[in-house]
């Protein structure tokens, strides 16, 4: 019996990073990936559909990732959904801030696809063999 599909929202203003993340996440079987270009676009997509996991950058125009995390955690529909922050900000202070706002994982750029894949799988409770060849 196959696992039901999981869905993931990637909120990232850099088209390059979005493409790279989608490229990596598509290697996880049964994971649907949706893209958003900034925090506001992310909130719009969250209102339209239900997602099992959210990946967000921090430095974005219009609404940054930390504000987005705060909004997500104040929403009853999403307060328990795992959030992964992926950012160039590598200081412990930035990490602590994101985690205190409710992020579940904090990954710094440049990203390593295997680490992103492993983190997403773990947060979604997916078995490790579910990679597409």
């Amino acid at each position: 019996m196959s696992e039901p599909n999981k869905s993931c929202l990637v909120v990232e203003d850099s088209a390059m990073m979005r493409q790279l993340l989608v490229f990596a996440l598509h290697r996880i079987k049964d994971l649907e990936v949706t893209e958003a270009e900034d925090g506001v676009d992310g909130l719009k997509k969250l209102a339209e559909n239900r997602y099992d996991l959210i990946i967000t950058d921090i430095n974005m125009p219009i609404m940054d990732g930390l504000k987005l995390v705060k909004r997500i955690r104040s929403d009853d529909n999403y307060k328990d959904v795992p959030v992964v922050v992926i950012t160039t900000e590598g200081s412990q202070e930035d990490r602590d801030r994101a985690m205190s706002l409710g992020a579940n994982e904090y990954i710094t750029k440049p990203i390593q696809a295997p680490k992103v894949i492993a983190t997403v799988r773990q947060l979604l409770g997916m078995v490790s063999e579910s990679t597409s060849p």
Partner: protein
Amino acid sequence: MTDSDEGERASDAPVDLLAEREQFVRTFLRKGVELTEELLRENQELRDELIRARDHSAQLLTQVRSDEAMRELLQTIERLEGEKRQLLSRSEQLEASRAHRDHRADSIERELNDLANLYVASHQLHTSLSVRRVIRHLHDTLGQLVGAEKFVIYAVDPEESQIIPIGWDGFANEEVLPVALGTGPIGESCLTGVSRIRSSADMSPEGDEDPLAVVPLLADGRPVGAIAIWRLLEQKSGWAKVDEELFSLLGAQAGMALIAANLYSRTHGPLTALAGIAEKL
């Protein structure tokens, strides 16, 4: 001899003789008793000896059987030891094979990751004909894929014989100045077309004015610009293997992407940009 002498009875024997006979009988009987007792004792001793001998014999028999069992056991142990050695050897082979496979899988994952970076960098660089977007993609490649924190993207201005900054990060605007062609590491790189990339071990901390890397951007074999990196992100301690590939890619493609976008900006859309292409074949 008289009749009275011939008819003498035993009871008529002298008292001494009778006593002697009685003594003899008693002695005889006592000796008989003693002999019997001794025989009985010897018999008992022999029985005991027999029991001990039987016990000993049983022990010996048990030991012999035990020795045989032991020999069989030892043979079994030896056989099992042999099987164990074979299994261990097989297990070690499998373990080595698994380790090799894991290592290979990790290696493939890394290569896939690197190839994805290169593909995405190249793809994004050529998906736009807007100068601003091309510079933005260069920005993203340097900041998010290479992990540079402080960098400048330059273009050669042939009329002024200088190199002008067209994009940067980590610097205040007033800090970013044009560079004379042929002067300093950036000017030299733009003149010669040769990269200058310091090794990870040679990366000094903050305060060094020399860039960590200068990569000329080539078009038709000539330098048309350069990227210079002064500092990497906090979490990045040195160059990754893919950085070298990214520098090669940028060196070969970024200059042409900038030229294409710049030429395109003077046209009125893609179809106008293609006008007259057949005449150039």
